């Protein structure tokens, strides 16, 4: 089942191509991350599917239906910034959102409690801190318990505790079967909560798939994955000489904490440990690191872009 299908979307601002022939599908029940640096076209993409911006070319559909306001009423969306009437209270702002969505007012207290704003529901929006504004915007998306949520930089302006709470909330929503589409430039965030990811750079879709697929594809061959390993011993110099002689390792570096290198993920950490032990060096530290999305992201966006 596909929640959102995007076909050949392009958006031009004069000569600038904010989006260039982007196509992908968001499967139902996923947390779908749209990842890209600032200005890569994430918000433009979401703006088009929410009918805020007009696509220059291409089409999209929600649940197989073409865009309409009835479709949008069933989606909770936070786009770019929290957009509320400054002179109105949190509660009154949510009343407007709920009325537009055609939902009852009974949800308002509940969603305000979810984001810890129930104590401040009568305060004017203009008195809110950035984090509170963001939380109110998230509360607004939850009105009417929609099956699809669209978050553009959801943790923007939140403190660490707030960020953790929102992440938990997103995971919880996903467990309940909701589909979440989330744009972010924070790789760590995407890595922690997303099941699927699309990487966009300068309006061009670089890669798309489940997080696992994206991590394991380097564009040319599948499963050419590598592992980052960190090791240390009493004599790191000797260790460096020993490890450096192995033909299958690469990117060997040494710092005060020890050595780090990458090797094919067919090599097990036990192989390394045994090899060193046999050569008379006892490892004081052995750490296997899955390659982070950040590394992948930089590989993808840093190597084959800007053409």
């Amino acid at each position: 089942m596909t929640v959102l299908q995007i076909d050949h979307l392009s958006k031009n601002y004069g000569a600038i191509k904010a989006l260039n022939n982007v196509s992908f599908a968001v499967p139902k029940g996923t947390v779908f991350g749209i990842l890209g640096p600032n200005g890569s076209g994430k918000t433009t993409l979401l703006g088009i599917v929410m009918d805020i911006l007009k696509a220059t070319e291409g089409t999209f559909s929600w649940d197989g239906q073409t865009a309409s306001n009835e479709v949008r009423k069933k989606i909770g969306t936070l786009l770019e910034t929290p957009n509320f009437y400054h002179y109105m209270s949190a509660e009154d702002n949510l009343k407007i959102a709920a009325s537009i969505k055609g939902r009852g007012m009974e949800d308002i207290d509940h969603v305000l409690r979810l984001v810890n704003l129930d104590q401040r529901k009568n305060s004017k929006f203009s008195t809110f801190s950035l984090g509170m504004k963001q939380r109110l915007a998230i509360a607004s998306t939850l009105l009417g318990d929609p099956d699809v949520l669209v978050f553009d930089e959801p943790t923007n302006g939140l403190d660490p505790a707030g960020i953790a709470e929102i992440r938990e909330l997103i995971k919880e929503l996903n467990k309940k079967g909701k589909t979440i589409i989330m744009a972010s430039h924070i790789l760590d965030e995407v890595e922690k909560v997303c099941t699927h990811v699309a990487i966009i750079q300068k309006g061009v879709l670089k890669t798309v798939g489940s997080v696992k697929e994206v991590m394991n594809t380097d564009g040319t061959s599948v499963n050419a994955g590598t592992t980052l390993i960190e090791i240390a011993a009493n004599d790191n110099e000797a260790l460096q000489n020993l490890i450096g002689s192995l033909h299958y390792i690469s990117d060997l570096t040494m710092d005060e904490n020890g050595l780090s290198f990458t090797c094919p993920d067919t090599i097990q950490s036990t192989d390394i440990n045994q090899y060193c032990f046999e050569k008379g060096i006892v490892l004081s530290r052995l750490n296997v690191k899955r390659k982070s999305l950040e590394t992948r992201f930089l590989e993808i966006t840093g190597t084959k872009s800007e053409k």
Partner: protein
Amino acid sequence: MKELLAIEWLKVKKYTAFKVLAICFIIGVIATNYIVYSFNKNVVSNVPAGGLISFSPYSFDSTWQTTSYVTGFILLLPSLLLLMLFTNEYSYKTHRQNIIDGWSRQQFIDVKFMMGFIFALIATVMVALTALLFGLGSGTSFSIKGIEYLGYFFMKAFSYNLIAILISVLIKRTGFATGVFFIYLGAENIISQMLDVLSMKIKSESGTDIGSIGDYLPMNAADGLLGFPNNSLKTMSKSIMPTDYTWIVFALAIAYMFLFYFWAKRKFVQSDL
């Protein structure tokens, strides 16, 4: 539309400027008319030559026209409020959020037009009540003769509101839009008067009466239908003034209203928000 208006009312009723401007307008309608009323009664009629222009403008049947004309001077207040309410949506980006939450672009702009219509209607009711009050206060007996001026007043009010909506859609920023609104009004009035002088000159030199062409401009068309009631001074100057071709001005005023409406609507529905 009822639901849309209910939501729009939620936005309006909490807005402080709404309360302030509404009170200013209500007081303003009565106060401006009272000033003209008492000036006419106490000053003009006491001047030796005052008899020429003194004709108690607030007695029936003139009261409808006089009140409509005089109230026209504070008609900027409701359109200014409308302009602020609309451009606020741009600065809060709530015009985006309303659409994201499920309004169509069409609905968003339609409800603004509807507000413009309602503001104009309320202003017209205010004028009707004030005209009645001063008419009865001046001791003449009730008559609906000249009540069509309330219709012209409504047209003028709605036309101002449509212009305010168009400027909001085109300019988007509150301060800038307010500035453009006032500058445009001022500039058009000056040009309109220059055009009237020109048409007077043409009339006196060649005898061709092309009408008060100043009234053919967008804002002045709706204005042109509402003059001060005829008095002896006005009658005396008639021979040198160009004729007011009411039907041309009326047709133009309607045409301009359609233009403002379709332009604003097209812009909002078709462009990026």
